[in-house]
């Protein structure tokens, strides 16, 4: 069995005649190992163990395309709980999946675009996650029991992402709400700059647990934001805000919402919500739904 790094040329066989097509090869050949035979017969499959509605897939050395194919297969065979072991950076886990009621647990660090375009699934990561978690996700729940990278929840339209630790830059960018779906991102730790940029709906909550309590979020918070709301535990200085947002004390409705979100988050994270709720929150909201309404002349 070869690993994908080894497969820089097509499989050879005496029964196979090669007929070159296209122009003669000149310049760099641009070999792309990722494309060549990934997911094709011969690529390594992870060992699977099944019991009832449960399945475990060993992801060690398994290419992402094969791993995701195997995950879909197990769900289609009827597994409602799937555990992926030994995950090291495989991309697109849960991407495009629409299986409400199915739980996938990831042991290890999944790669970029975890749960992208996902439309109903519970994904639990027992480690850190990388960039692009819940990219354009429509519904479902992602729980990251570590840190997550940049652009968590880009263009997310529904469902929830709970991160235990910190997140990177541009988290919640262009999140939007529609109809009954209202996306929610809760960050237990700290968020870097450009949180909620272009935000067009939904909710972001940053708890700032651990580390520097005075600065749960970075700068340019809510730049270009025109709908939705953010609740930040602790304080946010005026200079940290984008110019399209205002800061306020949460009102009664906000406080009820914060209580509900923190309670649910704490249950998912197996934490005590009381100490979290002891410190006050601030609310960040856009001052207009049409920040660029008067920019143009016809």
């Amino acid at each position, binding site marked *: 069995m070869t690993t994908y790094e080894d497969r820089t040329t097509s499989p050879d066989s005496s029964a*196979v005649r090669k007929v070159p097509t296209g122009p003669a090869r000149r310049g760099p050949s641009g070999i792309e190992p990722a494309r060549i035979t990934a997911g094709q017969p011969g690529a390594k499959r992870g060992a699977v163990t099944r019991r009832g509605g449960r399945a475990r897939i060993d992801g060690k050395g398994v290419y992402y395309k094969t791993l995701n194919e195997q995950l879909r297969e197990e769900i289609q065979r009827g597994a409602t709980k799937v555990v992926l072991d030994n995950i090291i950076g495989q991309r697109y886990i849960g991407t495009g999946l629409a299986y409400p009621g199915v739980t996938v647990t990831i042991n290890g660090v999944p790669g970029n675009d975890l749960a992208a375009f996902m439309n109903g699934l519970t994904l639990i990561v027992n480690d850190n996650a990388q960039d*692009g978690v819940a990219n354009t996700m429509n519904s479902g729940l992602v729980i990251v029991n570590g840190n997550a990278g940049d652009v968590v929840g880009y263009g997310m*339209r529904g469902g929830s992402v709970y991160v235990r630790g910190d997140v990177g830059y541009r988290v919640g960018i262009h999140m939007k709400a529609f109809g009954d779906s209202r996306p929610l991102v809760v960050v237990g730790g700290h968020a870097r700059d450009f949180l909620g940029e272009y935000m067009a709906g939904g909710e972001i909550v940053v708890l700032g647990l651990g580390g520097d309590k005075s600065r749960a979020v970075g700068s340019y918070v809510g730049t270009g934001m025109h709908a939705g709301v953010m609740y930040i535990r602790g304080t946010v200085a005026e200079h940290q805000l984008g110019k399209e947002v205002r800061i306020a004390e949460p009102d009664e409705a906000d406080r009820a919402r914060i209580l509900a979100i923190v309670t649910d988050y704490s249950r998912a994270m197996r934490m005590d919500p009381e100490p979290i709720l002891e410190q006050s929150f601030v609310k960040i909201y856009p001052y207009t739904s049409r920040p660029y309404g008067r920019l143009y*002349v016809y």
Partner: protein
Amino acid sequence: MALTTFIPSEFRVVIDKDACLQCGRCVRQCGWNVYGWDEDERRPVPDHSKCSACHRCVTYCPGGAISIKKNELAFKQSDSMSPDLIKAIWKQAETGGVQLTGMGNDKPYLRIFDHLLLDACQVTNPSIDPLREPMEMRTFLGRKPDLVEVAADSEGGGLRLVTELDRQLQLETPIMFGGMSYGSVSLNVHRSIAMAAEELGTFMNTGEGGLHADLEPYQDHIIVQCASGRFGVDSSYLQAGAAVEIKIGQGAKPGIGGHLPGEKIDYEVSVTRMIPQGTDALSPAPHHDIYSIEDLRQLIYALKEATGYKPISVKIACVHNVAAIASGVVRAGADIIYLDGFRGGTGASPTIIRDHVGIPLEIAVATVDQRLRDEAIRNRASIVAAGGIRSSADVAKAIALGADACAIGTAALVALGCHVCQKCHTGSCSWGICTQRPELTRRLDPEWGASQVVNLVNAWTHELAEVLGALGVNAIESLRGSRERLRGLGLDKMTLDILGIKPAGL
């Protein structure tokens, strides 16, 4: 908003009083509210300043009484400070706003297509009569393998294909439709083009506005777009399309985002885009998950994962470094690269961007094709040329320069009645094309619209067949990248070299 301080109207609405039947149809037909009605005299009274010269009233006036003239009010002749520039300054001085416009670049830059001439056979190799001999127009878009591996077939004694081919889009004519979103154009435009695409065996493109439920029956002939705002994008939308297009840029507005004003987001548009009614739909300038070729690759493969490995197209605007960018896009894994030239249309773009940013499609197609050939990766992606394709001659020339297929937007809208008045951004299109106002959109009957578009593309396809016949070839494939069959007339040497063609006479 009436701007009256200094600005003379662009057009004069001239009504022949003797011919006027005083029926008031012009008043009802005009989406721009040009016409008032004089109750005493029972006559229409035009407000010239609102006229866009869309000719809706002219077309529907039963007496043939209306004509639209240029307002020939003379300005002191100046080749530098033209009346258009003077008026723009007045407008901006009054409002402080960024000038918006619609359609494609209308400035008198060199039109390279009009300086290219096609070859024909004489004496030595015979031309072909396309009316009596088969002409293969079928085109496959998508990644072609580096090598085709075949093995002996144990049963038949022949050969069988071992290589697993990537999925292809099959077009019965090398003409498809460019992305125009529902929201910028009306649903009846989408219906017309979807029906036409199905009948023609080609593809329409949703643009970044989602896929309306009414178009689902046509989904095998629809390419769905995923752009930076991700409007209307969910897993079922991605799976609905025959292919997914990642829109990086648009020829009419390279490098900038989109902005559908809240006024245009009615209930149906809001449901299709999956955003609340009345809010602005802001498409950011970049995809915020794409800051590099590697990131583009990540999105391409995310979309492949989400769609079961359908072809992924990447649409870029033709800008200075387009060949190097295209090389990166192809290496990122795009199956189709869609080049949108600087004359490409738009529903709304800042005038400065539309008129001054980007490069011509002809140059871009030639340089991208050459670059991909030089790097031996031309087979990995098909090239779609769009942005300023006005006729079948442009299609033939673009294909000879290296495109696999062409896409049309403006030309298809013209088939639906558009008069290219460049007021798409106002949302008052009297032809019911670029508007969401129900009293206007219902003017376009999708059945009629589809037949118009089908006729147009069929006519162009016949014309392409004539060109191929004259060239003595019997498949569009034989014209593809065949620059030897093109000559330049009145182009400088550098441009000829960049296009990879000889001047006429050589």
